[in-house]
């Protein structure tokens, strides 16, 4: 064992003091057991949401008729309006219908309330800004100065011939890193 070092001891004391793991947290519910797989990234969350929506879609919209509130529980192909044929088939769609109708009701209420009936609801994905319509200016990849030229070999933009000399002496892969800073690198899949 190493001899006790005053610095190390002080540090140990400090981190013991800072540690919150050992502290009692009486305000927490001791029975709280979160879902083990609750950590999802945005891509996974959106993917799940899209899948969920897709599973709702056919029951809601495949009729194509303008009467979504009435007909969509009927997925049978026989064509006659006798949805309450068996008790079994009543229970299942009714649950789905209830939840679906709630979300739909909220949606419709929103559409009415904000006065812009055509505007879709704001979601994380659809509020993202669209690509620019402006003509992008070209800047030197090395220095950031205005760049009138492009090197056909590395595809780097450059300011003048001195920078061109630098580009031609770049090591392997460095040009690609410069392109990556501008998001113009080649992505191999």
């Amino acid at each position, binding site marked *: 064992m190493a001899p006790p070092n005053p610095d190390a001891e002080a540090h140990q004391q400090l981190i013991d003091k800072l540690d*919150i793991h050992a502290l009692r947290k009486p*305000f927490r519910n001791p029975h709280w057991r979160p879902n083990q797989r609750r950590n*999802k990234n945005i891509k996974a969350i959106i993917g799940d949401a899209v899948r969920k929506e897709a599973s709702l879609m056919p029951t809601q919209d495949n009729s194509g008729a303008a009467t979504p509130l009435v007909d969509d529980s009927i997925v049978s192909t026989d064509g006659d309006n006798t949805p309450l044929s068996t008790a079994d088939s009543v229970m299942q769609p009714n649950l789905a219908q209830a939840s679906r109708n709630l979300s739909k009701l909220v949606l419709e209420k929103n559409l009415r309330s904000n006065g812009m009936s055509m505007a879709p609801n704001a*979601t*994380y994905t659809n*509020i993202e800004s669209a690509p620019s319509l402006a003509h*992008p200016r070209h800047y030197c990849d090395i220095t950031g100065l*205005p760049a009138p030229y492009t090197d056909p070999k590395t595809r780097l933009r450059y300011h003048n011939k001195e*920078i061109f000399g630098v580009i031609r002496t770049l090591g392997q892969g*460095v040009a690609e890193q410069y392109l990556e800073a501008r998001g113009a690198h080649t992505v191999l899949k």
Partner: protein
Amino acid sequence: MAPSATEPTSTQATESQNTLPPPHLYLPRETHFEKYLESQPDGYRKAVSQLSGNTAIVIDNGSSTTRAGWSFEESPRLNIAPIFSRYRDRKLGKTYSFVGADVYSDTNARGHMRNAFEAASGIVSNWDVMESILDYVFLKLGIDGANGSVDMPIVMTEAVANLPYSRKSMTEIIFECYSAPSLAYGIDSLFSYDYNNGKTGLVVSSSHSSTHLIPVLNSKAILSQATRLNWGGSQSAEYLLKLIRLKYPTFPGKLNSSQMEYALQDHCYLSKDYDLELSTYLDWTGLEDRDHIIQYPYTEEVVVQKSEEELARIAEKRKESGRRLQEQAAKARLEKLIRKEQELDYYRDLQRKIANESKKEVKRLLDSEDMKDEAALERTIKELDKSIRKARTKDVGGEVEEEVEEPDFSLLEVPDDQLDEAGLKQKRHQRLMKSNHEARARAKAEKEREKARVAEEKRIDEEKRENDLEGWLQERRNARAELVQKMKDRERLKADLGNRKSLASQIRMKSIANLASDTPTKKRRRGGDDDNFGANDDDWGVYRQIAVGEGSDDDEEEDFSANLKALEADLLKYDPEFTDQHTLDAQTDWTKSLVHAFLRGPRPFDHTSQQEAHQIHLNVERIRVPEVIFQPSIAGLDQAGIVEIAADILTQRLPGSGVPHEAFLQDIFLTGGNVLFQNFDERLREGLRACLPAGAPLVTRRAKDPVLDAWKGAARWAGGSAWRSAAVSREEYLEKGGEYLKEHDLGNAYS
């Protein structure tokens, strides 16, 4: 990359070097552990003593900082980074958890650091971390949890158009884990707008992870027109880090994004006219003001500096030992001389003795001295005499005059049959001597001729110069250009050889393989048996070609530069158009180099200095990085810049949906930490003005405190009636589920 800057040659350089003041060095800042934060139970006691239902815990759950405090206070009590670290110390058998800046207190903890938010977004993705941060918040706010819960209403901010899953998870944690009585969500930038008494306007919120533009009409956000640009402070910091790493690929210091965040705050600003300012940014004039130097810590290499005295002592010592050696040599020489003189005397005596002796006696005497005959004795005496004289003159320091005496070639004319054996030998010796003598004379004549030839050449050259100066100069110029080209080619070849895949390298590998092979390919193709390698002198050049690395062609390079110097000296002397500025040295001088200005600023760079190796020069980056929010294409982000988005909202989307847009123009409101850049509001105003009808009333304003106003707004809102109607109580949660949300003016819509 940078040309040698150790010896600035041009006058401009030396001048500016003298006039430039010593640079101002900035130190890098980064987040670090400061001190232990005490739990503050006084706020909780005050909250409990107040009327229940009027106070709440307000948490601004931002991706850069989690700010938490009491709704009845002016400012948040806690400002903690949303980071968390948990690790198990195996030696002590103990698990440690740290939150916020405490993570930086220990290297082990730093290694296990995790962020609650998904990188570069305002969405929580790690709920274990989020829970720990909330634990920390409630601990430090002094919640005693007497009844096993956080018995205070909670107001929390969330991202614009937060994902339903994220909101549901947060709601679950608040109600299930902490059993809070009620919870209300709102959007941070709208709280900030409300706090600054905004009613109708366009909220531009540029924060740590993203930038949002939200039109607000009569205090109600029109979320369907909200737009997000995926660029904020954290992306800027990452971008700057990327640029610096590319700029200084071999930087010895440690770079991280936290330092870059501080560098953004301290050194970067938005240019009022980006293209104009950019085009002259690296110009020589005023570069010392635009170029900011960040000095990273370094250890100076200790060069043992010897004092004057020590140096003198060492020189003295060296001289002393030299003198001693000289003395010894002189002594040895003297001894040798004396011995030789004695020998000479002895032989002279012998000669005298021989003169009057009989032939037999002479023979005996000579034999005892190992000599053949009198001639040999004579020769010995002569030689001794000569060497003594030589040594003497050398001792006194005089010139040794080599007496060139025409050797005796008399016997060569005599036919062999007239000579006896000794004569024949002598003749052979004389023949040898003669050819020797003649060869020496020939070499001498050759030398003379060469000298004459050079002189003649010089004369012709001079004549030519006098008669046809222009032609002569042109010749020089061409020669110089050729030489410069040759040097460049050599450099390129060298660079190419560094790359394994280049043509030059491949040719080199081929020649090596060919040389090593027993059956070179070329020979077989030609069909000859002998490859006659070496018949042509140029064949040996192949060994020069394949040699790479240090010292492979130093001598040749040396040659090139010497030749170039001579040519340039001639041109300088006689060509009126060729000035100091035209020499290669001056042209590759660092004062001419844009790359030098970019990398090392306006001062010379010393390769050996550790201090300068640990410096980062921020120049173009100071405006290049903040500019991304106006031109996202700079950083490869395929989205419109904020001016374009704002103009689109104001001139297309709002009028299109029937909302009068003039009112919005009156109040363009800036909030969020990323709008703190100098000139942000001015830049946005000028950019927008260009997109709006002439004379349109346009007012931009900044939040009083762009960073804290979101929390303050939420705290103010938490006391009022709007809050009471927007908060979801625990009972409502239990009845209606985790996705249940009450919409209000400052919050997200249910989706």
